[in-house]
């Protein structure tokens, strides 16, 4: 059932939801952007609709709600481990179709890779319900249509924002009673049908081609451009790597915690082992690793769609103006050439 709800009324509903839910949405942090007098839009707890930034793409993805940047996993005293705790509320996330697909990719990584589900991801993820934010045209770096993540029916509620009201499609029985008194509407979310950019996923058909792909000069062309900052990883809804470290609370050297912190495959020491041995020592090799993970490796492993959902955040955030979508298209062109040679 769909309804039209004024912001004012929605705020009352949000307030009542808050007794059971933490509500996350893209929020503006004024002047906290990378450059002076630019804002940062990222996911945070909200308590009214006006806080939701619905007409801009967020700089960072909603992954941090289910996969926090820093997360304590265990606490310890001299000889004991204790599992870290998590709040007892459920979680509602306002997000777009691409990000819902993105979280599904994270589900694969955390819940299905290997034979045990990740406890820490799972305990947050189980709490989550999605509120789809309708997307009309997307933005100039989006390529969700090419990645098939422009549409979804995987949500509890969907919203379209107007100036001081929103239309809301409520699919989840849990929320239906809350809207009983609201004016009904015939709203169903529309989806982006076309992006300004089209991205072709490389058609790598065999290991042989993959070997050739590894040695393409294309990758080296990034050596002088990429500064290995890892911003592309940080903003990506599907980047899931982390590092585990132990820390000691300095006030009391006997207590400490084991924590998990996001890691970036673009950083030089991502593969560094004791003794200093590293794999993928150039920016180009590391970008190749990332690119292939996003459009090839993950798909091979899970026998499903590619990992990248085409949100375009990596393009938006790269300080060196490296376009991931352009990289993938260049790669696809090269692969087509290789395939052509092979078919002859």
């Amino acid at each position: 059932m769909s309804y039209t709800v004024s912001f004012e009324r929605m705020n009352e509903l949000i307030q009542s939801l808050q007794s059971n839910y933490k509500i996350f949405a893209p929020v503006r942090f004024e002047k906290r952007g990378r450059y002076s007098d630019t804002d940062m839009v990222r996911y945070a707890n909200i308590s009214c609709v006006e806080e939701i930034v619905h007409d801009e793409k967020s700089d960072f993805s909603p992954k941090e709600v289910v996969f926090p940047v820093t997360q304590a996993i265990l606490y310890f005293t001299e000889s004991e481990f204790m599992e870290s705790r998590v709040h007892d509320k459920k979680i509602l996330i306002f997000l777009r179709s691409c990000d819902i697909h993105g979280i599904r990719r994270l589900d694969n990584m955390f819940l299905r890779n290997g034979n045990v589900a990740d406890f820490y991801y799972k305990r947050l993820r189980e709490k989550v319900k999605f509120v789809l934010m309708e997307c009309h045209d997307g933005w100039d770096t989006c390529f969700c249509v090419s990645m098939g993540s422009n549409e979804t029916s995987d949500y509890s509620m969907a919203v379209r924002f107007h100036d001081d009201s929103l239309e809301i499609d409520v699919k989840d029985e849990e929320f239906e009673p809350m809207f009983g008194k609201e004016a009904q509407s015939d709203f169903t979310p529309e989806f982006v049908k076309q992006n300004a950019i089209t991205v072709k996923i490389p058609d790598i058909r065999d290991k042989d081609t993959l070997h050739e792909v590894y040695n393409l000069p294309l990758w080296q062309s990034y050596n002088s451009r990429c500064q290995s900052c890892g911003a592309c990883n940080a903003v990506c809804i599907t980047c899931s790597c982390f590092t585990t470290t132990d820390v000691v609370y300095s006030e009391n050297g006997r207590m400490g915690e084991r924590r998990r912190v996001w890691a970036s495959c673009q950083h030089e020491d991502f593969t560094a082992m004791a003794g200093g041995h590293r794999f993928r020592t150039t920016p180009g090799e590391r970008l190749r690793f990332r690119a292939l993970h996003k459009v090839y490796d993950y798909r091979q492993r899970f026998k499903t769609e590619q990992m990248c959902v085409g949100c375009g955040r990596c393009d938006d955030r790269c300080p060196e103006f490296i376009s991931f979508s352009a990289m993938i298209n260049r790669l696809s062109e090269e692969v087509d050439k290789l395939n052509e040679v092979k078919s002859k």
Partner: protein
Amino acid sequence: MNHDIDIKEIRKNCFRQSKVKGEFMLQMRVPGGIVAAKHLSMVQHIAETWGNGTFHIGTRQTFSLPGIKYESIDAVNAYIKDYIREIEVDTCGVDMDVNDAGYPTIGARNIVACIGNSHCIKANIDTTALARKLESIIFPSHYHIKISIAGCPNDCAKAHFTDFGIIGVTKTEYDYDRCIGCGKCVEACAHHATRVLSMEQAKVVKDECCCVGCGECVLACPTGAWSRVPTKFYRVMIGGRTGKKSPRMGKMFLNFVTEDVIIGIMKNWEKFSAEVLEHKPVYLHGGHLIDRAGYHKFKEMILDGVTLNPEAMVAQRIFWAETEYRSNINVLPVATK
């Protein structure tokens, strides 16, 4: 041709004497070094109608038009009236009469600024906006003062070599939980700045004392763990100058002061100059006035009535380091002044 011209009077009108007798160079103010590009057609018109067809991008970011004949000055002054009104009055809010007589004074010089945060990725402040605000305070005054505004401590605007150099600095804030311990900020700080960051237990610690407020850590951070606080802060360098006798680099007077403080001290500037020069605006620049008054007197007068923000830092003493082209150039017979 009668060349009986009072060049000092003409200079006050912003026309500079040429080596060619009877010719002058007009210096037009461009506060902050930025104006709408449409004004270039005005520059072209002046150069081709009254000047020698060229213009120089003045060292203090003026439109400088050489080769203007003494006889043309009135016509030129009448012509630039609209420009003066648009830039000085409408854009900067300068309180002045705009008439056919051209610029009323050359005293307070054009305010120089780098492009600032409207364009530059490194800048911490909007240099243009600040230049325009300060223009309304210092102009038109017959007292000589040079101001330069730099968007960040890299100081492309050379605030270190001017009477009042203002540099945009930032207070950064660290979000412990957003930090992934990658060390990129530590590297950036060591590379570009003062090496005040280091890693401790996979997070970052900062030696607050020596942070220059450049914001390189913010630029380097992949997760946005470092960010600038929304309030803008400034560093003020004083007493820098070039010159034949004793050029010197300015010294830090204030650090991490807010815009209100900058406005406050600039408002005290004219009074300070007048007092030091006994109300005679002779051709002597700000730095020399600070020398005359002595730093402590300067500090007292310039900060008079100014409320410093809590983060502000003020120099207790200043140790000038001049380049003396003759040793002990400051050691003079008692009679000389």
